[in-house]
């Protein structure tokens, strides 16, 4: 609990430092004009808003990643008791990881790490 409080205090202090820098007065209070707000394209003006249904090229990768991330959550408590449990922990986690490695190999064979 004390550790948590420490982290929160640090977070508050850091956030206020960053906010102070961000909102430091620069001496220019005039609001931006319309031509000033045109997105930078090296001279041209865009036709449309940049916000769009952006086509990410790695959708399958993100899904595989989530499954992997879940699995990592099992590994943290495992790491703590590894020395205590010895071979048993090694075997169980080895099996778990082997199953999941199949997932990566499968994904690789299906070409999901390509920029689709």
């Amino acid at each position, binding site marked *: 609990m*004390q*550790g*948590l409080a*420490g*982290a929160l*205090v*640090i*977070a508050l*202090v*850091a*956030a206020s*430092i*960053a*906010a102070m*820098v*961000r*909102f430091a007065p*620069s*001496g*220019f209070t*005039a609001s*931006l004009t*319309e031509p*000033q*707000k*045109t*997105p*930078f394209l*090296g001279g041209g003006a865009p036709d449309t*808003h*940049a*916000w769009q249904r*952006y086509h*990410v*090229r*790695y959708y399958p*990768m*993100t899904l595989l*990643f989530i499954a*992997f*991330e879940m699995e*990592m959550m099992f*590994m*943290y408590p495992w*790491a*703590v*008791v*590894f*020395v*205590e449990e010895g*071979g048993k922990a*090694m075997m169980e986690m*080895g099996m778990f990881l082997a199953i999941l*490695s199949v997932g*990566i190999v499968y*994904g*690789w064979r299906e070409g999901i*790490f*390509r*920029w689709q």
Partner: protein
Amino acid sequence: MTQVLATLVLPLVLLGGIALAAVLDRAVPALVAGRSLKASFVGPITVASSWAVAQTGGTEHPDKVNWILAPILYFTLAAIGLSVVPFAPGVVAADLDSGIVLWGACESLTVVAVFLHGWSANSPLPLIGAYRYVAIGLPAMLLSMFVLIAAALPAQSLAVTDIVEAQRSVWNIVRQPAGFVLFLMLGLSLSLRGPFDYADPYDLVGGTTAEISGTARLTWWLARLAMLVSVSAMTATVFLGGYLGPVLPGFVWLVLKTSLVLVVLVCAGEVFARLPPDRMMNLIWLALLPLSFLMLVAVGVELLLWG
């Protein structure tokens, strides 16, 4: 009491580290370019002032709130990450049982902060930078998780303080040398640097920073440096024995080791070329991730046989 001390020392460490990183950021490129180092010391201050007196930019209808929050969040995450690092035996701002999990949470929120920074601008080049960073930032995080778990095995704990104490016999860099390199890569990725700078690269004219100026740019720059310091301190703690060392007091050792890692990271950021994002994503999943697997197995076997 020691916690209060650590809380007071932490901002100083962070600011000192930022200053060092800012100087290195000018000195190392000058060195690589074969030019004089003269302007490296004053440079950061004058440039930062130059940014501070400029008008802060904006685009047509950006996501203003998130645009302001992203650099602040990024900076805050750097500070939280640093808070789990013990400065001396028992002197740590946040002595959590699950310190490396907190560090992992900071890593994942960093991806969110960088993404938001690029998304909020409503401008094409920052947008590409944001999405590109997600593709690299997410899998790079997996590497660090494996590496940190391998570091936690001998300590039998997820607390960073225990991980340091477990290195009294042998440093983790000896146990998993490849893990150290992988963690440095993660550091480059977290602080958007050199070969892992997928958010703010030149081919996107500064990526997520392309539309910002003034204090917004200053804050983002500070946050990047703060994250660099934070990663360096974490690397020094997890792999180089943190405050452990003979003769000198623990805090001095930590500062020395952190500075060393900082130099290595800045140099690596300048010296190596960046892969296109698709190739980097492939490399991480198909080469680096299996490598981190192997590192974990190696540490496990070592502990089983001789632990």
